[in-house]
């Protein structure tokens, strides 16, 4: 991307409301084209569309909200730098989620450099992939008030407890509503692997939350 002078630096927000409304009605591809055509405010529109969604995805993946914000910032910086090379025949959302997913995976990989953490992660992933799928109908029925109060907390913990490669697929499917093909493209896996990981993720998730759910 050509170097910009300070006068040409993008300005977000505070511009004509009409122009903003026009941008809101465009599709992602049209906004990208507007930005590449010189409309700096179009990039602000992309940021506004994806900031919280990406934050939710990255936060559920890495479990640290502050770090997730940094990674989302880094995602947008990379989008800004490489948007000119983006293949516009593909979906922009898949591309931006791919960048975020790679950054989140790098973050998790860097954390696991501690030998003990690495060993525990490897063991957890191996067990999650090779343990036989099983389901037990527990008779445990805790007090309703207790259950409701802690259900949300338990649900969040259940997602955080999933192995990393299951968690990413689970969040992309259940929270972000991505299709199997999109998930395969974002994670760099084939369709069969996505199905297998999602199935195991749902099984693990169900086992953890079952005592709290009717």
């Amino acid at each position, binding site marked *: 991307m050509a170097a910009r002078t300070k006068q040409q630096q993008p300005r977000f927000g505070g511009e004509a409301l009409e122009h903003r409304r026009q941008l809101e009605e465009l599709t992602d591809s049209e906004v990208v084209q507007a930005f590449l055509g010189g409309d700096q405010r179009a990039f602000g529109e992309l940021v506004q569309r994806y900031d919280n969604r990406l934050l939710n995805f990255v936060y559920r993946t890495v479990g640290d909200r502050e770090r997730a914000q940094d990674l*989302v*910032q880094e995602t947008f910086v990379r989008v800004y730098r490489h948007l000119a090379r983006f293949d516009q025949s593909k979906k922009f959302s898949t591309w931006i989620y791919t960048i975020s997913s790679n950054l989140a995976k790098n973050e998790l990989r860097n954390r696991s450099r501690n030998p003990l953490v690495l060993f525990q992660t490897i063991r957890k992933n191996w067990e999650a992939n090779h343990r036989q799928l099983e389901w037990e109908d527990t008779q445990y029925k805790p007090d309703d008030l207790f259950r409701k109060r802690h259900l949300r907390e338990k649900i969040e913990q259940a997602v955080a407890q999933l192995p990393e490669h299951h968690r990413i697929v689970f969040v992309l499917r259940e929270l972000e509503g991505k299709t199997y093909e999109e998930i395969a493209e974002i994670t760099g896996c084939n369709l069969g692997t996505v199905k297998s990981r999602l199935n195991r993720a749902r099984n693990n*998730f169900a086992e953890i939350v079952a005592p709290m759910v009717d």
Partner: protein
Amino acid sequence: MTCSEFQNHFSDYHDSLGDPAFMAAASAHLDGCPECRRYRGVVEQGVEVLRSLPYPSVGDDFLLRLKHRIYHLEDGPALRRREMAGSATTTTTAFAIAALIAVAAWSPVLTLAPEVVLDPIVVTRPEPRVIGIRPASPRALLVQLAREEAMVHRGLWDDPLLLTRYSPLTAGRTRSASAMRQADLE
């Protein structure tokens, strides 16, 4: 269809990805299996609660920080170029200093050794010493000293008696030998 088969392919049923035969078999299994029905209910209800959780939102300064980072995107390469030029200057200076030191160390003018004249060292033969033998009288001492001096001139290691005379292993014999000599001298 067994419970194991149903759970192994739950995603195909849940997301309607299976063929019609599979979907029919899965539905029929669910109708007759309360455990698998509960399994499906737990997954669906858990996901529903998960989706109802509030979306985390970016901080108030998120956009400002992003603008700042993008504004300074071009500064990174410029700073790196400046750093490389600076490091090249530093490297050149370091090499020049090292070369000067090497020239100074190997220069023939600077490595001339000063001439130092020392007094000659004279080594003399030490005076013989008698250890462990106490003469009975001053005259005996003088005689003994004369004998020792003669032994030294002859060669200390030529006298076989000398090796045994001062040995602690033959202390008894040496005492008696010296007593006999003293008696002869006396």
